[in-house]
């Protein structure tokens, strides 16, 4: 307390705000949706009132994407986004609807959908289903659901990869997330392919639950906490056994590292540094000369990189882009850093569709003008949004790396 006095700091982070209004320049929502009060008003300004009297809480705060671009912009380290999320948790009386619960339960829905994947995919793609979902539960009819895979990543791993992993001296754990497990096992397979080629075995976590980002966004906090603790325990166990845990989704990684503590109040500080993004892990191994990569001479691709909001917040765009630039056949362009508008489940909601597309409009135009062979980004929901809105395919940097890799040559270099 004496230090606080000397340094004229408050126990309330919002009091670091100088009222410079710079955050308002970078809010993707307030520029297109005037119903949202903007980061300064919703965050530090509003917090002062809410502390006086909760009646000042505004349900419009749910229009915040939790993109954290306000925090990246703030020159005084005000955690604007965290303040807004915490206020929603504390004061909102809005109960999650059936639609919110379905969208938030990426794990449960995924498990069910995998079993009947061809039927589910066909049904979800039908105009009739879309319009029924649009008018009944409020999932926007314009959205394309990511296709469900008929074989889960975990199943593939157990049948096709697990046994081979023990042969490697060095080991990592992998937090695959719902998307890799239920929709796109190839990304996880690509990671295993790369890690094995450079001499690392890949283990699954003892128990993995959905990271909880969609549950936090949809107000299912208790469930998010419960799953969060299971993930923390598993990552801790891997750490104790000497394994770093890698993720291929920037949002899963960000949620576990930062949101568990800042938003959910879970004790995750001791595992924060053993949870990282695969591109960051690989970059350091390469930088320190511990591994080498060989690339196919026939691989050619014009790649434009999109900085996902949570990637930007973690400050790790550098790692993914440097890896892509290392591939001789990649012609690299950096897209302007701006939100694509989907923000996980946000853009799937009927009431948010227009806002979502308006936010992404500038990005879509830049991509269409550039017409690259593919866009690369570390976030799966950005992928859906950009693919739907531009028609340009989107790939995770790990998939590009895996496709460009000369596996046999890489194995030789690292053995």
């Amino acid at each position, binding site marked *: 307390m004496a230090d606080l006095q000397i340094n004229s700091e408050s126990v309330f982070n919002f009091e670091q705000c100088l009222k410079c209004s710079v955050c308002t320049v970078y809010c993707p929502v307030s520029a297109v949706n005037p119903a949202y009060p903007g980061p300064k008003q919703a965050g530090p300004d509003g917090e002062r009132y809410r502390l006086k009297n909760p009646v000042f809480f505004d349900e419009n705060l749910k229009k915040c994407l939790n993109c954290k671009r306000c925090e990246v912009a703030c020159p005084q*380290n005000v955690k604007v986004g965290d303040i807004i999320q915490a206020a929603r948790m504390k004061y909102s009386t809005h109960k999650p609807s059936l639609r919110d619960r379905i969208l938030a339960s990426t794990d449960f829905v995924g498990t069910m959908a995998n079993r009947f994947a061809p039927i589910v995919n066909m049904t979800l793609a039908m105009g009739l289903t879309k319009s029924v979902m649009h008018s009944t539960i409020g999932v926007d009819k314009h959205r394309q659901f990511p296709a469900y895979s008929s074989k889960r990543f975990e199943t593939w791993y157990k049948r096709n990869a697990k046994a081979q992993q023990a042969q490697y001296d060095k080991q990592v754990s992998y937090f695959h997330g719902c998307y890799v497990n239920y929709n796109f096992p190839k990304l996880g397979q690509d990671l295993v392919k790369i890690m094995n080629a450079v001499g690392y075995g890949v283990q699954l976590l003892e128990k993995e639950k959905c990271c909880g980002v969609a549950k936090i966004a949809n107000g299912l906090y208790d469930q998010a906490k419960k799953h969060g603790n299971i993930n923390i325990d598993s990552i801790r166990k891997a750490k104790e056994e000497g394994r770093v845990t890698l993720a291929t989704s920037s949002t899963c990684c960000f949620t576990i590292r930062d949101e568990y503590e800042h938003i959910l109040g879970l004790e995750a500080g001791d595992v924060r540094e053993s949870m990282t993004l695969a591109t960051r892990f690989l970059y350091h191994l390469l930088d320190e000369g511990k591994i080498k990569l060989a690339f196919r001479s026939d691989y050619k691709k014009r790649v434009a990189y999109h900085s996902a909001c949570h990637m930007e917040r973690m400050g790790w765009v550098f790692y993914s882009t440097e890896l892509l630039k290392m591939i001789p056949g990649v012609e690299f362009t950096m897209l302007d850093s701006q939100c694509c508008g989907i923000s996980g489940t946000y853009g799937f909601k009927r009431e948010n569709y227009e806002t979502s597309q308006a936010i992404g409009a500038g990005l879509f135009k830049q991509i269409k003008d550039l017409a690259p062979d593919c866009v690369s980004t570390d976030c799966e929901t950005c992928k859906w949004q950009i693919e739907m809105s531009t028609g340009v395919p989107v790939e995770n940097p790990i998939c590009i790396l895996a496709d460009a890799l000369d596996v046999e040559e890489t194995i030789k270099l690292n053995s």
Partner: protein
Amino acid sequence: MKFNTIIIGGGLSGLTAGLALQKAGKRVAIVSMGQSTLHFNSGSFDLLGYDAQGEAVSNPLEVIATLDDNHPYKKCGDVAALAEEAKALLTESGVKVAGDAKANHYRITPMGAVKPAWLTITDYATLAEADKLPWKKVALVNVIGYLDFPTKFIAAGLRRLGAEVDVKAFTLPELETARKSPSEMRAANIAKVLGNEDIVKRMAAAVNEQTEGGNYDVVLLPAVLGIADSALSQQLKANVNCQVQFIATLPPSVPGVRVQNLLRKRFIAGGGVHLTGDKATGGVIENGTLKCITTENLTETCLKADNFILASGSFVSGGLTSNYEAVTEAVLGLDVDAADEHGQWVKYNAFEAQPYMEFGVATDGELHVKKDGKVINNCYAVGSVLSGHNRVKMADGTGVSMLTALQAVKNILK
């Protein structure tokens, strides 16, 4: 992950240094915590607006030669050449500016005052002399509901100089929608609303409707167009039937954000590493050399470089901090020039020259920083973090930012 130079700070001075080093073929990283004070830019750049007595300067180069030895310009070798280089760097990056280091012109502030300037973005209203407007009949046209452009003050300022001013306002359906959130009806958000060719076409028609038959010499508009570049303001000018010029608004500043966007984009396109939103937290100094710096986001590593440039800004940007006991340089705890006694930091009259404005990092003649009295031979300070000048009283802030950055680069390349 080794760089030729790591720059701490992504504002005007950091980006200037980054681009100049890149031009010399160097691998550069910028660590940028939060956004910069370019968000408060006036659409102009100043070299030296006022002398020590507070008189407006007409020839900055002449007066710079007479400044105190502790002014940062005294550590810049050839100020005239550096000023030319700075202007060229802006132009190459797509910031079209006009102005001359030997002859200040004047800009119009959002409060209707007239102030000296060195360079001004070409679409913005300027005066060749402080008391002479280039127009007689003026239409001052605002966006309805936009409060950061106080037209009454601006009109009064223009009338004092003899202009005949009509204040007008226009709106468009999109602007009416934006207006539903009065607290977010700011310059940058309006620029996003007015962000495509179709709406600018309709904006031009709305402005024409307001000014039709008025025989105006000029239409003056708030600077709410073109966050990315000047394309939309050019389009508007082409479609309005009368000469159009812009006046800067209260912050956030659209021209300032545009300058930053253009410089940053060029830096990244040139292969520069921009660690957006990351905070330098410390460094390892051995035998008078800064070896590496740590950052908040890249926790696993200490970033190495041959040279470092501290362009972290002043108190508002967090480059300098203060408590009740001392003024401190935030990243490395470098030596600062500051009065010891807290009572000597401020003058009671807010409009007097405030002593704290001149506080900052101490440097030697080559802009090297010091720690515990010892020079760090590969670390340079540039821009607002430097001691020895008062940018409010002397209107030399952007000049110091750009010129010291270019000088530090010369010292590195030497």
